[in-house]
């Protein structure tokens, strides 16, 4: 994995509340190569977003990265100064957020918001920044970009807003784009447009993409590799085709079963019973064990390691399928 763009290794991010500690990310490891799109999938609360924020060291207080390494181009981000991190953010590593309307400062025009990054990182003048912002809007497929520059976020449609977010993220030609659930709020056609756009841009710009979603459909459509997370831990990871076609972890299996299958409307959906565990009070052993049909006694007592197999896949289960 030496050619990895980003390598997250045994990341632990905890939130220290008054009387409890919430272990949101609990020993997560994965890697992204240049030009690769990696999806992180899992239910809400699995720790996906916190993992992403940890990469940029933007975990909100009272959260703290407890342990682990985040190697970006071989350098550990956790040892960098605040200033170095600021230079990295938005320039080398940029991020797109879940809720575009709330992630765009409502008090500034789109042009201002895009330009701000350019002025900050690239040292452009206001006029240059505006010109470049227009080009970026065109790049992300917004029609009539010159006019849109003077719009405020609330004046744009949800899809447009997300395109603007992507334009901001792309403005400094980042090596890594982290996208946190960017399409949840959008309707399906727009989602597909955005996914196509990201793929296109990856092909054109060659950046790595980390795509967080709770939607395996998106993973299937977009990603090269996928990481399945549950209760702050990686359950399974590997190339998308393999993981979705032949899941080895029961949790992955259940996730796939919960999806409606095209062309087989008669089949009942299989929701996962129970709820994810309280991250402040994780069970011993496999965290999925309480909901797992295949769980045996040792699942609830033994620490389960993530086991890599030769085909680039890894699974955290005592009794993996195959």
């Amino acid at each position, binding site marked *: 994995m030496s050619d990895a763009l980003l390598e997250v290794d045994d990341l632990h991010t905890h939130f220290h509340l008054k009387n409890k500690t919430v272990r949101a990310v609990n020993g997560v490891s994965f890697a992204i190569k240049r030009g690769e799109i990696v999806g992180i999938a899992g239910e809400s609360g699995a720790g996906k977003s916190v993992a992403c*924020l940890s990469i*940029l060291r*933007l975990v*909100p207080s009272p959260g703290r990265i407890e342990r682990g390494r985040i190697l970006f181009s071989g350098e550990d981000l956790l040892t960098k100064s605040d200033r170095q991190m*600021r*230079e*990295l*953010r*938005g*320039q080398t590593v*940029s*991020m797109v*957020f*879940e*809720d575009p309307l*709330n*992630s*765009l*400062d*409502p*008090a*500034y025009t789109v042009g201002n918001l895009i330009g*701000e*990054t350019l002025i*900050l*990182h690239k040292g452009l003048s206001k006029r240059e920044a505006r010109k470049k912002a227009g080009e970026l809007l065109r790049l992300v497929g917004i029609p009539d970009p010159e006019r849109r520059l003077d719009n*405020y976020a*609330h004046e744009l449609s949800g899809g447009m807003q997300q395109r603007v*977010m992507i334009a*901001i993220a792309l403005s400094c030609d980042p090596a890594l784009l982290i996208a946190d659930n960017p399409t949840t709020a959008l309707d399906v056609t727009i989602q597909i447009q955005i996914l196509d756009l990201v793929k296109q841009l990856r092909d054109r710009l060659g950046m790595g993409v980390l795509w967080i979603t709770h939607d395996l459909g998106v993973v299937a459509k977009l990603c090269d590799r996928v990481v399945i997370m549950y209760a702050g831990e990686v359950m399974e990871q590997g190339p998308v085709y393999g993981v979705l076609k032949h899941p080895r972890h029961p949790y992955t299996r259940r996730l796939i079963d919960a999806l409606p299958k095209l062309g087989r409307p008669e089949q009942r959906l299989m929701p996962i019973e129970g709820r994810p565990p309280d991250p402040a009070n994780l069970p011993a052993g496999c965290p999925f064990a309480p909901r797992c049909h295949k769980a045996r006694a040792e699942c609830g007592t033994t620490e389960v390691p993530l086991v890599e197999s030769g085909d680039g896949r890894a699974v955290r289960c005592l009794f993996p399928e195959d």
Partner: protein
Amino acid sequence: MLKFLVYRVATIVPVLLGVSIVVFLMMKLIPGDPAEAILGPAATTEKIEMVRKSLGLDRPFYVQYVRWLWKVVQGDFGTSIAVNVPVAQLVWPKFWNTVLLTAGSLVICIVIGLGVGIVSGTRQYSWFDRISMSLTLIVANTPAFWLGLILMVVLALYLGWFPATGMYSMRASQKTFGDLIHHMVLPAITTASVSAAIIARLVRSSFLDVIRKHYITALRAKGLSERDIILRHGMKNALPPIINIVGLQVGYLMGGALFTEVVFSWPGIGLQIYSSIVARDLPVVQAAVLVTTFVFVLVNLGTDVVVAALDPRIRRA
């Protein structure tokens, strides 16, 4: 924006008309006859009638109202019953004195309110935040008249740092700005106290709100420094509610100045209203309440316009 402005200005016209009716009717509810109040122990039925007639008190209400309003529009508020001079001549100088006091208080409110609020809001749970928020909670619930008395005794009487009463030193041959400021310190602090505390608390929560917004995280992800985030983005977003509350506080200050003016003998509109109420001097009370409310409405209008200019989301309305 222009449409918004026109719309907003148009809405205050019926409000002002309503205000004038309320003010007029309110004064008609006063028990006791102003004519008797004027004449005092020397009153006889005949003399009372005479005075009533000269005041137009014998006409029906609506006639009195229309005549009164028509004159008010022309700037004529009638004649003071107690001191027998044109009310306008009495009220305007007092009003400006209150404007001065309000302006001084507003400066204190904004400086203290914004300063404390921003520092607290960006450093939640720091010792500064804890102490200042406890203090503001206390001050926000402290009666201004009581605080005024205490400031007067401690700072004016014991320490002698500031004068206790009035606007200018009576013995000085000339009115100077420095003298005015010196006299204004205690009344302005007293008037501003509650509002400054309220503003500080609001600025803090407004900042906390903004700082927890997703777009702040997004801005951090863009690589902006905390200073830029707070000053450029935090400020601009937190400002509309702050301006709103500051606008409202202007009204509070103008009303609350009444207590201060009574305590510190500040010759403002509040003291005038108070003494005119006690003297049952209707035309003066009418005019003073009307003028103050009118200005309050205008200030609110101004606040709305400024907020709309700052916050693009409101402008469409």
